[in-house]
């Protein structure tokens, strides 16, 4: 193997670090997309036996959005292995306890249950907010496109911007806004 070929090999199989902002994103649909990058399915050199998966850093996992009343209806099951050791935790309870857990389980569950799954999960780094350790932040070179654009909330606009927004009419002076 020549020096050129060796460097080409390193470059081909070099791990890329991707950033994914989970703000207001559906974790279960995001998991499908994140899984592709973790397993290396986005590269034409993919093969189940070659180790070409990338790292994914998920930020703002505390800000994920579940559909409808999923927060109250989705249940996470756990069994300690002892008799009577079964517990059922609602999604909002789990999210209160650990804001990264729903995202982590979503990604874990979309992957096939083979021996590689635990090692692939080690390349996933989830943070509940945008506070990422410097050591991890300096590796990131790419950003994964979000599933949908995040709309700006009304209370995040400056009061002047809200005032300047075109309106059809002014409320009458004696009209009481509730």
């Amino acid at each position, binding site marked *: 193997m020549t020096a050129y070929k060796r460097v080409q090999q390193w470059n081909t199989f070099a791990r890329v670090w991707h950033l994914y902002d989970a703000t207001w994103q559906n974790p279960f649909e995001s998991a499908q997309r994140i899984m592709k990058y973790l397993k290396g399915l*986005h590269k034409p050199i993919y093969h189940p036996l070659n180790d070409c998966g990338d790292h994914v850093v998920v930020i703002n996992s505390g800000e994920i959005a579940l559909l409808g009343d999923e927060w109250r209806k989705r249940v996470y099951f756990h069994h300690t292995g002892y008799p009577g050791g079964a517990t059922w935790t609602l999604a909002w309870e789990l999210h209160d306890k650990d804001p990264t857990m729903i995202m982590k389980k979503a990604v874990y569950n979309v992957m096939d249950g083979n021996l590689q799954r635990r090692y692939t999960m080690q390349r996933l780094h989830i943070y509940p907010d945008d506070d990422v350790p410097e050591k991890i932040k300096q590796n990131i070179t790419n950003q994964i496109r979000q599933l949908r654009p995040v709309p700006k909330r009304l209370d995040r606009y400056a009061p002047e911007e809200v005032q300047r927004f075109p309106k059809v009419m002014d409320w009458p002076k004696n009209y009481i806004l509730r």
Partner: protein
Amino acid sequence: MVFTSLALFVRNRGPDEFWRKRKILKLSAHFYGRRRNCYSIAIRAVHRALVSATKGRKLKKEDMVALWETRITAGCEEHNMTYPLFREGLVRCNILLNRKTLADLAVWEPRTFKSLVKVAHARVSQDGLAGVTELGDPPSGIITRGMLK
């Protein structure tokens, strides 16, 4: 072999027992444990292995097709294209490349693959297939057979 009577001819069970078993034991030579040398166990293991080999000939082809499709999909997504639209665009341009060739091009000839994606993109957006609007603007300066009307 010489048979002195009809009864002895009927009793005869084909070729010599040693060589008959030898054929089977040659097939089980790489097995583990008693399945390798004990004939009655070896014959069962050999039958099983031959069944698996028969099934495997079909499965191997299916596995390769699935792998090629994964690779082509990955190559397409690098250029913001989907696999079904890509194949449809190529067929409509009369570029009849199979999955194996396309996957090889995606790995070893990325520039060629990119130009194929461009050709397919131009064709599907000209024909206005469902889902082309998500691909973005069609590439300019691409002219292929069947596009000039």
